[in-house]
């Protein structure tokens, strides 16, 4: 049975009151919100690093905090693997000593990932002798992740694991996070202000705004709710599709989604044939066509069926099934919906330029 995290806490903060109720047994659960929404604070309450909160925190049947019963387990007895936004490596130690900082507890526990395995999965071998101060931003994040994994955690708390990393490195770190998720299967809470990262990494998400949870559910369902969608970056949602790279040349790549569906990506220099790829495409970048459309430059034309449509301000959120295998969302205008007669069950073509597809991560 999957371990269940139950959080029901209140904590007064300078600008608002953190008042959160979360119950999740997702293997990877996202905590999404803009900066200053209370995400990191909530993570610190769960880790036991923030005093003054009222309420209850329990994980896998263990009560970590219960202010009514006067229970406040110190952080060292909670068994969390905490990875703060800035990595927070011990500056007086080498990468190796940092990674092994929690190894004593891991050994006492017995069940946790073995350090050698973590080092291998995260490609850390050559970094080990380096002092913490001599690591780059991306390397620091990897070492911090390894340190959390090697401490025998029952629950990983990852605060913006991609937050402070420049764009070119994100894809690599994301791949490492996906590998770690796959290899070690430890329940995790990911804090992020990036909906796409949450879509990629999490099975479930809670959206936090001004200290309160305003939506929860699966990432695609939550992020395409009108009230949440309007609040995303550019008011746009990034669909995530997973497939296998079948061709990679000239920095172009072809990804087989299965069921006869393939995607062509214009700019995917690090795609490797045979590996699994996560591809992103913005909902507003998708075009819909009512019938055959010969003579178009768009390289991606996929047959789909409208599941339902929903108004969101001036726009229409169209949920589309691709051959029953994937569900994606396209944003169109109301006149377009009327002109195309978009209603549940309508067969349509989904069009995307190869340049509008992005390779988000490899695994």
């Amino acid at each position: 049975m999957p371990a269940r995290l139950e959080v029901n806490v209140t904590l007064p903060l300078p600008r608002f009151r953190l008042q959160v109720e979360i119950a999740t047994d997702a293997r990877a659960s996202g905590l999404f919100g803009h900066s200053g929404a209370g995400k990191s604070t909530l993570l610190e309450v769960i880790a036991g690093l923030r005093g003054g909160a009222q309420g209850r925190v329990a994980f896998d049947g263990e009560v970590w905090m219960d202010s009514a019963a006067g229970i406040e387990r110190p952080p060292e007895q909670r068994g969390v693997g905490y990875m703060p936004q800035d990595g927070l490596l011990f500056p007086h130690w080498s990468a190796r000593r940092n990674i092994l900082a929690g190894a004593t507890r891991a050994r006492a526990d017995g069940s946790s990932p073995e350090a050698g395995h973590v080092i291998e999965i995260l490609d850390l071998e050559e970094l080990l002798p380096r002092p913490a101060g001599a690591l780059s931003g991306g390397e620091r994040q990897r070492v911090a992740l390894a340190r959390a994994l090697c401490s025998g955690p029952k629950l990983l708390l990852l605060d913006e694991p991609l937050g402070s990393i420049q764009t070119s490195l994100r894809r690599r770190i994301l791949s490492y996070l996906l590998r770690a998720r796959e290899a070690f299967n430890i329940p995790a809470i990911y804090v992020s202000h990036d909906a796409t990262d949450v879509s990629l990494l999490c099975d479930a998400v809670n959206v936090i705004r001004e200290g309160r949870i305003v939506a929860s559910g699966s990432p695609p369902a939550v992020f395409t709710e009108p009230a949440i969608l309007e609040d995303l970056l550019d008011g746009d949602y990034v669909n995530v599709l997973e497939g296998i790279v079948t061709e990679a040349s000239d920095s172009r790549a072809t990804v087989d989604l299965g069921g006869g569906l393939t995607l062509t990506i214009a700019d995917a220099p690090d795609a490797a044939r045979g590996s699994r790829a996560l591809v992103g495409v913005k909902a507003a970048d998708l075009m819909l066509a009512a019938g055959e459309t010969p003579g178009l430059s768009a390289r991606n034309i996929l047959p789909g069926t409208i599941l339902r449509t929903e108004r969101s301000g001036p726009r229409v959120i169209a949920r589309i099934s691709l051959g029953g295998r994937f569900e994606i969302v396209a944003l169109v205008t109301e006149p377009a919906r009327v002109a195309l007669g978009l209603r549940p069950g309508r067969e349509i073509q989904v069009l995307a330029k190869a340049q509008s597809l992005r390779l988000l991560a490899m695994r």
Partner: protein
Amino acid sequence: MLSQHSLQALLISVEVALGASLLVLPPGILIGRLLARREFAGKGVVETLVSLPLVLPASAVGYMLLSLFSIDGPLGARNLGFDPGILFTIKGALASAAVMSLPLVARTARVAFEGVDPRLEGMARTLGLGPLATLIRVSLPLAARGLAAAAIMGFSRSLGEFGATVIVAGNIPGRTQTLALAIFSDIQSGRMEDARGLLLITTLLAFAGTYITEMLIRGSSTARRREA
């Protein structure tokens, strides 16, 4: 170059200063840690009490110690049931130097601990390290330069201690007469040659101590800036 009694004063001074700084370091670190990391009722009073010897006349502190260790005093022979042998011995010089240097040591230690990011200590806790292991493996090493500066500060301050020492330990050549006391005695008896020699030595020692302290403190703050 140095007369017999000057050399003796130098040796006694070094012995006293070493002993006093070692004696004062554990409580100094403890108080510094407490003031840097804990909020408690009456913290302001504790801060003031700790700093008091900085501003009180040393002779007043000496008189307090004298009363404390006198035969009928709270820590006197009658109360303890044995003679602690503080008054007019080298132990008295040591106690005076320790009390007088405690404020500097505690304040420097406090600054050293305040320079350690408390989030690093929290991080260590999440990794399964208890409060003591966190202190030993994270806080102390990260504060090490500042704490070394505190120790040297304590040593240097002890070398120069005069007012309390002369009251508690007396000014007995070869037994309790430190550099500071010897300079006083030399001037009183017109032994200007000896006084000048001792002046040179104390200046050199004080310069070295202060210089090293400055370097340690500056080093730890640049290291911190580099991290940030």
